[in-house]
């Protein structure tokens, strides 16, 4: 039995406020094996991104971890000194964000922004780092890397920018890549390319991926195991195939029901898309019942 690369144990996260702490994440536990691609899926506001920020140690006030452990390669990241955590961040655990338009500094060339990684973590000179940045661009299949390295973000398309982000994140060959909705802001064809790129690169390097998305289709195409998040709780976890063929939790079934299927006929009433009540359950109710009663259509009655 190999040791998990990342072991999140009973993670609790709160929004601290004068009138008391508001729970955001409750008792989140999951493991990612070396080289594995793990998906976190759930609707907006279910706590996927916050979970990833907690792992990275990038939470901003008033959010704070109130309990649990984030064990990465045998050490609890939550107990690391800020300096050690900083060295780890970007080097061993890297992150790609959702918005490639704003996640890059508009006043700095992409080459420089990639080169920073080598200067920060490998002590390279700027010259050497820039040379490596060209290679990094080449590895994410940016055409004309020697020319593109001097480009500013506004001179690139969204897909190219996301490739730059990927090049940056993978620059130091991290052991874990956290991808927070990396394809959501891209159009479908570009989305497929970027997904394939992440898949290929990480498989080739043996990089484990924590892939966050609200898109079940994307998750299904890239992840080996999936965790379903709902209102700050991890409600179901399974192998991708098992999860999709046999969703156990009512909420998961709700998510599946809301998926359009190619070839299904929407006009004939029978195969209608089912929606889930649009509002996330009230947290104060949730803290008492802990696990949610099925909402809306998932409870099987004529809603």
């Amino acid at each position: 039995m190999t040791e998990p690369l990342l072991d999140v144990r009973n993670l609790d996260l709160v929004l601290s406020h004068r009138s008391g702490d508001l729970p955001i994440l409750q008792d989140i536990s999951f493991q990612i094996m070396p080289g594995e691609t793990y998906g976190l899926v759930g609707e907006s506001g279910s706590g996927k991104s916050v979970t990833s920020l907690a792992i990275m140690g990038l939470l901003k006030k008033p959010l704070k971890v109130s309990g649990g452990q984030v064990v990465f390669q045998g050490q609890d990241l939550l107990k690391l000194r800020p300096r050690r955590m900083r060295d780890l961040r970007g080097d061993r655990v890297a992150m790609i964000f959702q918005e490639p338009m704003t996640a890059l500094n508009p006043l700095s060339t992409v080459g420089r922004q990639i080169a920073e990684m080598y200067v920060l973590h490998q002590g390279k000179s700027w010259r050497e780092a820039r040379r490596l940045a060209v290679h990094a661009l080449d590895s994410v299949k940016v055409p004309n890397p020697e020319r593109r390295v001097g480009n500013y973000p506004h001179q690139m398309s969204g897909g190219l920018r996301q490739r730059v982000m990927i090049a940056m994140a993978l620059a130091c060959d991290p052991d874990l890549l956290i991808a927070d909705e990396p394809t959501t802001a891209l159009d479908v064809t570009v989305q497929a390319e970027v997904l394939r790129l992440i898949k290929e690169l990480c498989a080739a390097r043996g990089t484990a991926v924590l892939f966050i998305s609200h898109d079940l289709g994307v998750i299904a195409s890239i992840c080996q195991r999936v965790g379903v998040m709902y209102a700050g709780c991890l409600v179901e976890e399974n192998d991708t195939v098992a999860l999709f063929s046999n969703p156990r939790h009512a909420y998961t079934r709700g998510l599946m029901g809301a998926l359009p299927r190619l070839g299904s006929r929407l006009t004939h009433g029978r195969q209608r898309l089912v929606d889930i009540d649009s509002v996330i359950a009230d947290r104060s109710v949730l803290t008492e019942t802990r696990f949610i009663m099925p909402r809306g259509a998932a409870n099987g009655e004529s809603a």
Partner: protein
Amino acid sequence: MLQFTIRRILQVIPTLLVVALLIFVIFSVVPGSFAASLFSDGRTTANPEMIAQLNRELGLDLPLPQRFLNYVMDLAHLDLGTSFRTRQPVLQLINDRMWASLQLAVAAMVFAVVIGVPLGFIAAMRPGSILDSVTMIGAVSGLSMPQFWLGLLLMYVFALQLGWLPSFGYGNGSLRNLILPAITLGVTPLALLARTTRAGVLDVMNADFIRTAHAKGMSESKVVRWHVARNALVLVVTTVGLQFGSMIGQAVVIEKLFAWPGIGSLLVDSVAIRDIPVVQGTILVIVLWFLLINTAVDLIYAAIDPRIKQR
């Protein structure tokens, strides 16, 4: 970049022409004339014949369009006309005064930038801290204080009570004479700069790419040096430019107060006796100064932000 520079500089010329026309029209329709103010002593009205004679001498009897045409033709030869009062070329009068004004403006701006920008930066690094509150309260006080009152206060304390600095005059360009008027003139831009720097830095700190920088494992100081400073600079440059441009105009009061022989006091004196060529020339120079500063700001923008050059 060169093309961009040339284009921006050429754009100054039409603006200058429109301004020249405006000044000309305004001072042709305002009541009062040089001749009338020269001959009148407040009790008796001047002799109309003498006024007519003087107007003829000064060329004021010609029709307005023709006067404007002459004026523009002279302008094209860099001739701003001749003062009614001293009969000296206006250009020479302005030249005598302009450098003192520039000296004052530059000194005030240096004072404002050197203190205001770091203060705003530090305040933004620790929002809500005591330092932040003190800086911002100070900035609001600085903005709301009338300049002439501040000038009098400084004069009273540092010149009269402590006797450290001269209270007024140019002192043949001595630095000691420059200090009090420069501080007085610099307080408003200082306060404004502290505020805009703080706002600009805070704005950048909340940007997505700062989160990216943190995710890369950068230390706070590197984040600031590599990603915040340059981006926040855009707003600072705007403020410095705007303030610098309008400073010569603002300096009128300060120059009067400290008996500073600048272009502002020349303007006030000339308006009082309707010495129109000097007034026109002075305003034109002030406008030109403003336009040049603006152009410089645009060029600096383009140097900082690669997105601007493309347009």
